């Protein structure tokens, strides 16, 4: 029998293959921290978690050109050409392979948005990793899968799913294997949506990535969009689809779940992947939907989880300097200036991830 496959998709940063090992273990621990209801199946019998990794495609061309340029510079040594314009171009190539926030975070987001060669290769890689895993499922039982994406990963997943499942050429028969739930944490799919990729006048509110019972009307059955009110990136993402986004039936069936909350975790990482999942306002509805069982976690258990979370992560006083700094970042994120957003992103990473 096939288990429900849950894919995890990273955002920006210097993630390496295997990046999700701890996250997936913690996801399981969270699920198992709730009492098993009578007749309920444990995590291991319900789910199989998988990692999706695409960061290498951001880095591959940078590292290659950096190596070639570096080799060339070394070959030239300290000769008379060192200060020439050509040498400066080589230096620019060599510098592309370096680290630092601008290259590992901001440049990744800009590459994804503006370098179609990079973004298309990333969508191709994500599609392949999904399909390769689905191809390994048991023959003769229906395949069920969901995807949980964070930050830039939400844009990657949105665009990939639109291209995979938007009916027409390139998506033949794809209605037969659509995802069950699409879960977007700090959703920037609208902010980064690119009509050149999605099609003329198509954005995250008019794409095929919307929840519906009918595979012909939407790419998934459930869509969860989660935003921490203190997270500048989620505030910049500002994912609030218009009423026309859903059919009346999909609205009645609550196929879309906007999961908004306001919390400052003890480690102050208001944007972290794990921090989002750790909040009961996110994982309780998520676990219920993934398990297909509204009663999987009772209302009393949900309330207890919220109380425990609040006790462990008390909200800072309004006058607290750290809180004021976080709120200031949120105000900046509401601006429409790209460089300002990138700067805010860096500040989030620097200030709240211990860098």
């Amino acid at each position, binding site marked *: 029998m096939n288990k429900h496959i849950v894919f995890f998709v990273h955002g920006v940063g210097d993630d390496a293959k295997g990046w999700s090992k701890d*996250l997936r273990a913690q996801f399981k621990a969270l699920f198992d*921290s709730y009492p098993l209801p*009578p007749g309920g199946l444990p995590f291991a019998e319900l789910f199989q978690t998988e990692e999706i990794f695409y960061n290498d495609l951001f880095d591959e061309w940078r590292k290659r050109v950096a190596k*070639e340029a570096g080799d060339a510079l070394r070959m030239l040594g300290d000769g008379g050409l060192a200060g020439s314009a050509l040498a400066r171009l080589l230096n620019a190539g060599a510098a592309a392979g370096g680290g630092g926030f601008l290259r590992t975070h901001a440049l990744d987001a800009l590459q994804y948005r503006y370098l*179609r060669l990079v973004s298309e290769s990333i969508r191709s890689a994500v599609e*392949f990793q999904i399909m390769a895993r689905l191809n390994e499922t048991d*023959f003769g039982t229906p395949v069920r899968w969901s995807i949980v994406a964070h930050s830039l990963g939400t844009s990657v997943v949105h665009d990939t799913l639109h291209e995979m499942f938007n009916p027409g050429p390139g998506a033949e028969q794809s209605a037969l294997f659509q995802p069950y739930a699409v879960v977007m944490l700090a959703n920037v799919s609208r902010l980064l949506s690119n009509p050149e990729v999605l099609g003329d006048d198509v954005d995250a509110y008019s794409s095929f990535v919307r929840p519906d*019972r009918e595979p012909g009307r939407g790419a998934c059955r459930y869509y969860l969009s989660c935003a921490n009110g203190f997270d500048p990136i989620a505030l910049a993402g500002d994912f609030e689809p218009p009423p026309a986004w859903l059919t009346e039936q999909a609205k009645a069936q609550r196929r879309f779940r906007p999961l908004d909350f306001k919390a400052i975790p003890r480690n102050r990482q208001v944007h972290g992947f794990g921090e989002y999942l750790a909040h009961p306002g996110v994982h309780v509805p998520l676990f219920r939907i993934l398990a297909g069982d509204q009663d999987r976690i009772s209302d009393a258990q949900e309330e207890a*989880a919220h109380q425990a979370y609040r006790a462990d992560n008390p909200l800072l006083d309004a006058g607290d300097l750290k809180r004021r700094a976080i709120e200031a970042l949120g105000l900046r994120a509401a601006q429409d200036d790209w460089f300002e957003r990138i700067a805010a992103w860096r500040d989030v990473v620097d200030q709240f991830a211990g860098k």
Partner: protein
Amino acid sequence: MKGVQRIVQRSAAAMLIAALAWSAAGWAQPTAQKSCAELRAELAEAAPLTAVNQLSRACLGGALDPDPFTLRAQRLFDTAGRVDGQPRRREIRDVTLSVEERTALTLAVLRVADESLGTLPPAGVDGAEIGQLREAVRRALRDRGNGVEPGERSPEQRGAYWTWDGMQAEIGATGIDVRAMFRRAGCDAAPRGPACAATRATVEGMLRGAQLAERAFTPDQAAAIQAAEARAAARDARWRSYFAEARSQYPWELLVNSWRYESTVRSERGISGPPDWQWIVMHPDVGMQYVRSAARGDRFKPALLLEVIGYNWWSWGDGHRPENAWGVSLVRTYADTASVPAGAWGVTVHRNNKYSLTLTRREGKTGILFSIDLAGAVTRASQEWKDRFRIGD
């Protein structure tokens, strides 16, 4: 990630304590898979909707279900996945069926679903829903047998039409609302009354029939997944080759090529493969320059070159790697020479994204520039070979 781990662990621990305080019963997570009989026993006191939802995971047409109809369906899948003399193949990627074989398997499993539903009491209080479900199965049988394409005219031929959704308490797109059935049977007021028990048994049978019908269309799903995976694998391999084996690109070249690529794929739907070309723009490189007419010490020297503008193209080979690549660029070269001018204009020809040969002209003197790869090959060659071509000091 360590910080993430800490906070999740803390939250999980806090919730664990809260949950323990809330309910000590039913806490321990099982270590061995339970049988359907054990699950049913656990669910004896549960609300009927909760019970059928839990049983739907594996006990109503699923892997643990000991029901004879389910076992018959499983045998059909086992047979389809078997090749003589080999163990049964389990995974989608290993099972390749022809269109005719898929149709035969789908029809056979649909018949099992139909027979399974035929055992339910058609004249009872839930007779309308049973009849509705069975009629849908028979429409699917008829349409598949007559070669009707799945789609709007025949939605029953899609697995999603039958998928049980525990959140909505409805059987796919059949329009059957299980919550309403339980309400009608008085399950809200008397969940352990005989009417409710009878409806629960009926719903279990209907879910088994629906899930068998859904499984009947898994060969279609498997074929679609296989085909999509094959396309995606080829595309991904080409993209990786594009970045690893085509000529390297500086940031500004990637920008130019992205703009050009975007204009070529704008009208395409779905995820596109990589181009089989690249523009070369202001691309710095190094090579070994040979100018025979230069003074002896200037004849063979490292040189910088700038490919001002160029174009490189290839075809994709069977291994999804660039093959038969050719490229040409207008270049400006610079070498630290005294006996001949340091700079010269020239033309570079690229071959297979690896070897480049540049011809330059300066004051009527011809120079040759080898790419590093080509120069490496040259310098690895025998001294005799080098002497023959008078390369070196």
